[in-house]
């Protein structure tokens, strides 16, 4: 594993949750290439840890709701990459932790579960990035009142129903455009298409829903769904944040892109369509 954390645990010595935080930190250094920042020493001599803190993504492990580690991180102006709270994890896993400061069977089990979860999360990020997606997308912007509508200038195709596709070899990523997310406003639900299913061009690739309406994702291409953006299940608001990047909907193995393409717009044509729609319908 190439990636690893700089771990800032709370290390609370007078509470069981604090002791578990320490155990998780230790386990992570054993199974990954992570390094620990000692919260006690860090407070008095931060120079010692500045290098680790700046080089690796920071993982905060808090024991209880006092969140000493989080506070220390914000005091020192550190950028937090991931955060975990032992008490919350115990609740989520239905494990009762005792008041004892020596770790018992339950506590060790919890430490294991959390460690596995943290290492897994790491692997997942890597597997997702296997689809090579452009990093610096340039957008053309159209504004109406206080609303901003972005359309990526290069590499994307669109259909008339405000969905986009970005092709990479025989795999494509699909999603909705800013017109959809601005019209829906706060998106609260994402119903994904099922992985493995075959979809025709203009078939339904799941839907997104806000308090205002349900929008059916009209698939711009035909093929077989190979992946969905699982982050959207918990955080559909990512579509509002950026429907082209974090808020992508699904990946699809293309069956006949050359003929699908006849029914898609490139940037300049879609931008015209978008402007007209915004002027006529966006309220």
């Amino acid at each position, binding site marked *: 594993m190439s990636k690893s954390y700089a771990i800032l645990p709370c290390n609370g010595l007078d509470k069981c949750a604090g002791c578990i935080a320490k155990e998780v930190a230790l386990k992570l250094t054993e199974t990954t290439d992570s390094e620990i920042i000692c919260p006690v020493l860090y407070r008095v001599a931060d120079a010692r840890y500045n290098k680790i803190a700046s080089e690796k993504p920071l993982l905060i492990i808090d024991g209880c709701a006092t969140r000493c580690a989080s506070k220390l991180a914000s005091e020192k102006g550190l950028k937090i990459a991931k955060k975990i709270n032992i008490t919350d994890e115990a609740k989520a896993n239905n494990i009762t932790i005792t008041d004892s400061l020596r770790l018992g069977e339950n506590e060790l089990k919890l430490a294991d579960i959390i460690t596995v979860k943290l290492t897994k999360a790491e692997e997942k990020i890597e597997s997702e990035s296997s689809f090579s997606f452009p990093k610096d997308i340039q957008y053309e912007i159209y504004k109406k009142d206080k609303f901003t509508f972005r359309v990526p200038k290069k590499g994307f195709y669109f*259909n*008339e129903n405000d969905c986009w596709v970005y092709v990479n070899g025989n795999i494509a990523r699909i999603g909705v455009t800013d017109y959809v997310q601005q019209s829906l406003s706060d998106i609260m639900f994402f119903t994904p298409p099922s992985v493995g299913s075959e979809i025709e061009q*203009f078939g339904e690739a799941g839907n997104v829903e806000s308090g205002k309406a349900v929008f059916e994702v009209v698939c711009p291409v035909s093929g077989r769904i190979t992946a969905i953006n699982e982050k959207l299940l918990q955080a559909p608001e990512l579509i509002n944040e950026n429907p082209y990047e974090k808020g992508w909907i699904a990946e699809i193995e293309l069956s006949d892109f050359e003929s699908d393409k006849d*029914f898609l717009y490139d940037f300049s044509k879609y931008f015209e369509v978008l402007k007209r729609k915004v002027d006529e319908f966006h309220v």
Partner: protein
Amino acid sequence: MMSESTFMGVPREKIDWSPRIDYDKCNYCMECVKFCPHNVYGIIENEDKKLIVKNPDNCVVFCRACGKACGVDALSFPNKNETTKMIKQIRKGLEDNE
């Protein structure tokens, strides 16, 4: 509206895509009328069937959003695959004639 008269290069009036109202189910709550920003529906007062599809060609091809706003499920749409096939055929015909 001239600007809207084609869909993917095909004259809009040649594409049969618009909602069908099941009058046995419709309770005339008019949610669809309120919902659709494209003025697809119309209301005729003093008629039994006072909800009608007034401007079918205003309907956005492949959009079924009003159907999801209908509480009694009285709205249906043509089959998408067949509509797609039809559009492709018409497009091909137009290109061959050029």
